[in-house]
């Protein structure tokens, strides 16, 4: 599939901010065998005083921007054309849960793709005993990791209500679990904590999702939003699997990857440090349009 994706993030500040430094991670990635960024661009208003491009530990490209003068709003626009390969769902080569410790111990690597980065608690995701109990309830002896992940994904999708008003960007997995409500970030965080509590390496994928309008209706512009789903390590043979707990589906050609991380903090679209005394308002508009 070929997509044209556009994103506009707008920040409005109550009191003008006197400057600021941000990291922006919104451009789709190039991942051999999965997707390819054909062309992409990022622009900001006001124009930053400094701008530089880097690649982080997990191989996600990011842009650092610096503002020196006061401004009362900030607009970040991203335009990209991305080619996404279909992800055929193969037979289940994933390891049994009981074999996982051996599989992990045999993997002598701390490369960005190594599973070891995704087993422990991460900056935003502490262990949550209630989520562990929730996860353990789906496990029966002899299950493979893929079976377990798929079952947890289904269970979260069944038990949780999608509710954009219930949580914020700072809601923890424990809070979202308590509420059984939230958005893709919350679904994803809860599922990651659940998998890790069983010892299964799990990470956060940030990206875009193409949404199909209801039958007979026009696609509304800007109706899409940035999306998040889960990446699961299924052992050395099977490697990584991507599941989307918000929609209870495996990630496919509708899922366009921006970045990989341990939790939201590693791949947040915009991280910023501002000098500000007032509040701020954020708006996000996304369009994912298939190119025929």
């Amino acid at each position, binding site marked *: 599939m070929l997509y044209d994706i556009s994103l506009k993030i707008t920040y409005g500040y109550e009191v003008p901010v*006197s400057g600021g*430094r*941000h*990291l922006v991670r919104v451009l789709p990635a190039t991942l051999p065998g999965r997707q390819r960024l054909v062309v992409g661009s990022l622009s900001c208003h006001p124009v930053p005083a*400094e701008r*530089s491009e*880097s690649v*982080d*530990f*997990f191989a996600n490209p990011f842009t*650092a921007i*610096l503002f020196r003068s006061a401004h009362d709003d900030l607009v970040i626009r991203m335009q990209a054309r991305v080619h996404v390969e279909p992800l055929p769902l193969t037979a289940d080569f994933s390891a049994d849960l009981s074999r996982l410790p051996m599989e*992990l111990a045999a*993997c*002598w*690597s*701390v*490369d960005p793709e*190594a599973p*070891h*980065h995704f*087993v*422990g608690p991460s*900056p935003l995701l502490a262990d949550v005993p209630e989520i562990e109990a929730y996860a353990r309830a789906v496990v029966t002896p002899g299950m493979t990791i893929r079976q377990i992940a798929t079952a947890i994904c289904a269970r979260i999708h069944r038990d949780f209500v999608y509710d954009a008003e219930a949580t914020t960007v700072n809601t923890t997995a424990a809070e979202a679990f308590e509420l059984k409500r939230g958005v893709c970030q919350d679904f994803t965080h809860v599922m990651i904590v659940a998998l890790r509590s069983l010892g299964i390496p799990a990470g956060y994928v940030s990206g875009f999702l193409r949404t199909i309008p209801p039958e007979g209706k026009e696609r509304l512009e800007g109706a899409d939003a940035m999306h998040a789903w889960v990446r699961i390590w299924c052992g050395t043979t099977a490697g990584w699997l991507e599941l989307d707990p918000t929609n209870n589906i495996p990630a496919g050609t509708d899922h366009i990857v921006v970045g990989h991380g341990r939790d939201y*903090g590693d791949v947040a679209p915009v*991280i*910023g*440090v501002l000098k500000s005394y007032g509040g701020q308002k954020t708006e996000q508009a996304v369009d994912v349009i298939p190119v025929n």
Partner: protein
Amino acid sequence: MAKKQTAAADRLGIDDDPVFGYRALPGIADEMLDAQGNVRPVWQRLLSTLGRLDETELANRFARADRYLRDAGVFYRVYGGKDSSERSWPLSHIPVLIDENEWATVSQGLIQRAELLEKVVADIYGENRLVREGLLPPALVASNPEFLRPLVGVKPADGHFLQFISFEIGRGPDGNWWVLSDRTEAPSGAGFALENRVATTRAFSNLYAETHVHRLAGFFGAFRDTLQARKLHPDDRIAVLSPGIANETYFEHAYIARYLGFMLLEGEDLTVVGGRVMVRTVAGLKPVGVLWRRLDAAFADPLELNQSSHIGTPGIVEALRAGSVAIVNALGSGIVETRAFLAFMPAICRHLLGEDQKLPSIATWWCGQTSERAQVAANIDRMVIGPAYATRPLFDDNGQSVLGASLAEKDAASIAHWLDAEGGKLVGQEAVTLSTTPAWVRGRLTPRPMSLRVFAARTRDGWQIMPGGFARIGSGDDVAAIAMQAGGTAADVWIVSDRPVERTTLLPAEESFTRNMPGSLPSRAADNLFWLGRYIERAEGALRILRAWHGRFAETADPSLPLLQDVTDYLAALDIDTRQAVPDSLLANISSALFSAGNIRDRFSPDGWLALNDLSQTARKFHATVQSGDDATRAMTVLLRKLAGFAGLVHENMYRFTGWRFLSIGRYIERGLHMTRLLGHMSGPNAPDGAYDMLLEIGDSVMTHRRRYNVNTAALTVTDLLALDPLNPRSVLYQLNEIKTEVELLPNACVNGQMSPFYREAMRLHSGLAVMTPEAMNLGVYNRLERDLEELSNILANTYLG
């Protein structure tokens, strides 16, 4: 000789014994006594010195050392529950003496270890061969909270990760030294070692002069010179980067910075521009080339590292990627501090250096591995079990570790289950027995457990080990009592030679005398000084008005009297409630002054700090006890006197440079505002009876008025004296005059012959008021003047303090 010793022993109330009844504990090595119980030669001179002193003399000597520490303002912070408090420095007065030959062996072992640690850190943030080749389990890197992913692949600007590190070492029962932990992040204690040295030599000055004790200054000098040479540009600054006043060892940060002549900065002082780290000073942005950080690495950059950090500098990691700044030690170096690493160091040492470790570390097993876990379970009663990623040694980790022996009542199965479940999060370490060293406890020498912190610095000639260190002495027999937070004390360490030693000092030799002017003042320090000035003056203004109010209230006991009501209304607008004898807002004001002063404590004398603390404590006490009327009048007088005491100390002792000017301008602006507001409110045609007398009293100008005008108080004379008299230090014009004088001397007052906006505004206000007559002064003029003064404060903040 024998007779003399007997006499001394008598005086100390101890029988005829060259060691005053000191006995090593069974099965434990001792620093003063060898395995046979004989006094080690390096200690003999100390013992005979002690033998010559009676208890009073000894007490006097110890008191001299303590007085030095108190006068120098040495403190550390203790955390308990929500609060933290400052404690005076707990010096154990008897130094630890070690023979230089033994020390040379220890030093060789530590230098090897420093080189090894450097290679390990470089590998973790570089090629990662240790993991790939099976010498380091990947989990120890990937699950390690000290592993900072954004630093992977970032090479330090000067090629080295570690520059200044320390080791905690102890002597085992067999008399050999062991490494208990490595400190590669931002080791503390080197400055305290210097202060321990100065204090201890106050107690034992003759002994120190007679004994050939290796000096510490050469070590610091070599490190300072190395950092100087490390700068990429000649005008780059070198700074100590501190987490700030709330840190437990803040005193040391300030001390080291001053001792070595570096700036003392906090994250907020820095900004990154064009990939370079710059310090915000009152003279603009200045480049920083080397940062010796005392800040935990994760907090250094809220953008790429810990996003919740409020003490970092956004963009610092970007500057590191650009290679424009050297940070000592490199961010991320703390990873090799984590306890589990000790388990793998022996094999890594053989692999990387092709030799065994010269100085072994205490035996450690990481429970993330099956056979090691079994080993720990099988020998649980000889183990300490603790967190694998802890960075503190096990006797100083706030009780996170448990003694295996204390689990004895648990059955083997439940212990094995626990170790299995927690696995990689735990390490087992051999329970250590530390050597003892003499401490003076209740009038006699008593053996107390000791560990030694030793410092290593990378110099141009390779690693150097500080000849001495920082001994930590337990408050009881228990090894766990070494932690200072648990009542432990600190002692100086003397490395003793049998030949005279080189006497270096970092004080410049007389012939090379130069008069260095202080460097650019960081904007944050200027901001704190400015606000300290304003808060102090604001408190004084409030105190003077309240004293006058209560004096009159005491006479009439009627707060509805027009004059009293008028002043009550005036104060209410300033959030001061006259129904409280010592109002809350006055306390808040003094607290704000104390807070500002605390942030720049290194810039004035310990006496000034004590005076300000005294003012604050007294005000608090009065707040609880003092009644309105006469009682309050007296209380205000006491507080005013204490405040004047602080102001006097600052005035008499503070070096007249840029910092002083910001403090002064703060005071002048606030005093000008105070008098302008007061005159505007109380000097109009509707002023209540007695208002002019009260104004004179508040303005401390009663006597002057009597002498100068020889008439009863009247609107014009009071206005003249309090608003327009250039010689009255309480008048508004006087403040503007002084501001004008100070402004001329501030950095960038004129650029290319053009006055700065602040300079221009100060001049305009001054000349505007200087040409006024008392008749022309009215409420409108005062209101405008008040706005102008506030605006002047804003312009100053925008020009210098941002």
